[in-house]
């Protein structure tokens, strides 16, 4: 009745490819956390060294110029991620137009 790490990795969502996608999502979430952790640490370091005041990043209101930069980056991110479902010709055209 021995088990252990059996030769074929078990499947948990009813489809091995679905498991693969889920694993990618877990890994992405982990990378997101590592980056978020680093941002928090970086901000703490900046406050500790007097480069920014505590809470300054939270309170910062983007200037009109910064708002435009954020808008462009936000639109580009959304387009890349949601646009991934489009055909490659459409995606190439969108990338060239950016």
């Amino acid at each position: 009745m021995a088990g252990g790490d059996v030769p074929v990795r078990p499947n948990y969502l009813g489809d091995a490819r679905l498991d693969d996608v889920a694993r990618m999502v877990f890994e992405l979430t982990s990378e997101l956390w590592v980056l978020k952790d680093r941002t928090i640490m970086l901000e703490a370091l900046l406050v500790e060294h007097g480069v920014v005041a505590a809470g300054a990043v939270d309170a910062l209101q983007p200037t009109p110029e910064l708002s435009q930069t954020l808008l462009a980056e936000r639109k580009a991110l959304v387009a890349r991620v949601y646009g991934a479902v489009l055909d490659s010709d459409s995606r190439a055209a969108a990338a060239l137009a950016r």
Partner: protein
Amino acid sequence: MDIELSQRSRAALQFLGATQSFSGGVLQKNAAAEYDSLVPQPPLPLDERKTSVETTLADSSAWCFDRLLTRWVAEEAYVRALPAVEEVGDELAAWTAAQTPAGTLTLDPDVVAPQYWENGFHLAPGGWDGHELTGPAIHELIFKYILTPGGVGAVQTGENLNDQRSLAAREAREDSYDRIVELGSGPGRFTHALRRSYPDAKLTAVELSTTSLVYGHALAGEAGYDIDWVQADAASTGLADESADLVAAYTLMHEVPTADNELILAEAFRLLAPGGDLLISEVAPYNMHTAFRAVVLDWETENRGEPFWRDALLMDLPGMLTRAGFTEIEAYGIGGGVHPWVTRARKPR
């Protein structure tokens, strides 16, 4: 030892702890509630329980993702902990060299590990000694960042693994012992609990893993504990007949095939002086758990590198103890609970 990791290594390991904590503490509880509401009178035999839970919860997001996340965390634990511990390899070596343990360390380069020991336990690449730093990787990083917040196996999310060891160590019958032998000590978490409970005893820890022994010896030095460490198979320790008043083992038996557990019990009997005590703490047999919990535990066998788990939880340990010659056999959960589960016995005078 307080190991300082890089930001990436620390955050990546902490993420696994948070994942396991959520999975065990929220998803699994949701799944248990779903099962209980749908099957108020579950079956008793293990195979029927497995079919019942897996069929009832086949379309349960909470169940499916709790299982996948638990498996993923178990795999990723080593993917992350081994590189993390390598980053601090030089500091670890320096720390180990700086310790001045009171007890001895007896390594045997010719020790022949039983064949079952070479399996990939707990999904660790290469098994117990698959990496020269597997000992500290498991017992510092994985323990601290993943198992403590997240739970593992019979230890549910939020429970304290060290408190349970301390409780179990105090379950031996006598208030004091002169000579204690612990079988399968690893780097010594339970050994430390025995030392705290029996401060005056000569304490010998028997273990096969070189990395665990070296690390355990150094850890005991840091803690100021006088413990002798011996590299040997728990079924053939090489220690003298009747050289112990107490033989103890903590979560050793589920790592061992039943036939080898019989050998270990025979060895314990040989080691004990007449009137000496045996103290075993393990995961409780399946029939002590609810159906859902029994299936969650049994899942470890094929999914988390615990090849002998099922056999251990099905075997008749009191019966094996009787056949080995022990008497005054008791089996119970500490404090009326289910974990830790204690079996204790005595060698007749």
